[in-house]
């Protein structure tokens, strides 16, 4: 006989030990469901598509081409980068895109699974894990482009290249953390879903993706330096391309710790808030 489940109006935070136990149980129980949902969504997405997997790396290619042309034609004035500019833009765009996908993942998971959530009581971590799985799958495809870029531009690799995936993981987790915080509210208000593309586009320009990290002072440079994505992005790139040194170690560690702590908090808030969202979704 399975153990009893009790539903009460009590707040979950009042029994923290029980909450942690439930979180662990739900996370473990989500694995198979998440796997199935991931397979379902990826198959469905590419089954109806002619170009299929190519869509995963066409955007960075396009962006890189566009900005390189603009820069060469001196239409925009970008500073000097240590790496070939085209490679710089494309590689950064790939990283940035992965971050944005991770940020959008929980929000899309909740809004996309509304009919499902309204009818079945499944561990809600499953839908987020499924979407994150998609993000990783998409990155795996982009990896093909990354390897091609490294080969084409003859970029050197070193032992630090093998540390780059960990930095990338922190980048993904940071996006997930923010996404988890937004997801329940995204399930309630349309504004979140509409506002996210706008916000991420603005954020793109505040991150050194298409331009090098600015030196010196000035308001704009300060914002860029305070941007938490900056150290994550920069460090990942520097590790991958075996740069001489990591330029922002302190900020990187700080953001990493913030991410790991924030992820736990965001998870709890997600669990807490979802029942209120689900009951407002019509079945």
């Amino acid at each position: 006989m399975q153990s009893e489940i009790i539903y009460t109006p009590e707040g979950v935070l009042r029994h923290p030990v029980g909450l942690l136990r439930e979180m662990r149980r739900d996370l473990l129980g989500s694995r198979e469901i998440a796997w199935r949902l991931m397979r379902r969504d990826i198959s469905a997405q590419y089954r109806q598509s002619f170009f299929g997997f190519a869509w995963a790396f066409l955007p960075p290619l396009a962006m890189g081409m566009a900005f390189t042309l603009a820069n060469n034609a001196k239409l925009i004035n970008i500073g000097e980068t240590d790496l070939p500019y085209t490679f710089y833009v494309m590689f950064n765009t790939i990283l940035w895109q992965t971050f944005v996908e991770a940020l959008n993942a929980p929000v899309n998971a909740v809004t996309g699974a509304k009919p499902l959530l309204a009818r079945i009581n499944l561990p809600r971590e499953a839908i987020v894990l499924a979407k994150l799985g998609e993000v990783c799958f998409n990155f795996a495809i982009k990896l093909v482009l990354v390897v091609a870029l490294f080969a084409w531009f003859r970029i050197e690799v070193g032992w630090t290249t093998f540390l780059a995936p960990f930095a990338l993981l922190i980048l993904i987790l940071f996006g997930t953390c923010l996404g988890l915080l937004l997801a329940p509210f995204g399930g309630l208000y349309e504004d979140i879903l509409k506002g996210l593309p706008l916000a991420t586009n603005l954020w793109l320009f505040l991150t050194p993706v298409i331009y090098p990290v600015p030196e010196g002072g000035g308001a704009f440079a300060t914002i860029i330096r305070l941007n938490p994505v900056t150290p994550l992005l920069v460090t990942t790139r520097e590790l991958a391309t075996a740069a001489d040194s990591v330029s922002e170690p302190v900020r990187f560690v700080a953001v990493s710790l913030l991410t790991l702590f924030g992820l736990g908090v965001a998870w709890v808030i997600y669990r807490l808030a979802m029942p209120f969202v689900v009951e407002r979704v019509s079945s």
Partner: protein
Amino acid sequence: MTEGANTYQSPSQAEDAEVLLSVEHLSKKFCRNLKRSLFYAVRDIATELCGMRRAGGALRPEEFWALKDVSFQLRRGESLGLIGENGAGKSTLLRVISGLVKPDAGRVRVGGRVAPLISLGAGFNPVLSGRENVFVNMSILGLTNEQIKAKYDSVLDFAGIADAIDAPLKTYSSGMAARLGFACAIHTDPDLLLVDEVLAVGDIRFRAKCYRQLAKLRKAGTSLVLVSHSSTAILSICDSSIYLAKGGLVAAGATEEVMKQYEEDLTIADHETPPGELTLPERPPASGLQIKRLRFTDAAGQPLRTLVSGAPAQLHVFCYASEMLEDVSLNIIVNELAGENSRVLFVNSAKDGKRMRARRGELTLCFQMPYCGFKPGLYTMKIHVLDGAYYNALDAVESFVFKVASNGSMSQCAFYQPREWELRHDSALEEVANQELTTR
């Protein structure tokens, strides 16, 4: 377990059959206004985050109680019917039991696996094939990979859509998709099955299959909570029922009693006791015959307001014929007023072999019932007077509502059966009877 006026405990099961579902003083409120409802959601989330208790007792502006102080218990192997009008809170109750919605007051205890048949085909993706969707759906319902593989063939067999199983789901008709969804859900081996009005899909053969499968599950000890507007389904499947109205528990007990109260409430709401007769307004004559009045009478010809099951009754159709009619027949169709409006009678005097000839002038067509066979309730009658040779309707009354009262012994009867009881000691008769049996 608390006991009170609003609590129902089934007396039929042994006390030591374990309690699978226990609902204690459950209340749930919802907000009517969408924007306000979203705002309340944000407020509730904030309250929970600060670890404070939500004020469950009072209603905030534009909120209403979807469920108020509902308590009942369900033991293993029992089946419970949920009856009530639309909007009474039945679906909300099922959603609380499945854990989708958090209560505002009270408690729900569930032991064992719950499979909600609240809406079929959760998780189905239209682009994938039926085969792939089975895996998705059953995984969402809580089965592991091995369990799904073990039941896979049985599910496909039950759904009965053999050829189309590899086609994308969006090519299925809604009936086929529903059958697949039902097949998945029914194979999850739950301890408690919640069925919310989904048994209405599919053709008759599939519906029969579903009911058979439910019966099989019940025999195997699965408990069942059924929401349905079909009184036949609830009467045949559920031992006990609870009647919800506007979120409150109005009645609980054996299904027939609760059903009777529900149907009374339904019909009393719309109609007072019908008068037993109907006078049609003056109309210009359109054909050779016009119906003037309808009236029920008893065997002696006295006007009858309400029929009684088992008692003789007659229907008099007073007409005026403006010309001679060679072959007149009377066609009577009776439908139940409550429940699913099902047809209970379709009779025609010509089909029964009675030839009637009408002269010019006033005439009365009589429909005589030696016993009124209808069970108690409200019915509506459609009457046609036909010109036999051409099946031409001379005149018709579309709706004549009448009430049938109980004679006291109509509980659990679908119709009145004229009967005699006897005990005999005559051995000669017994031998004859035995001989007849052996020669057959």
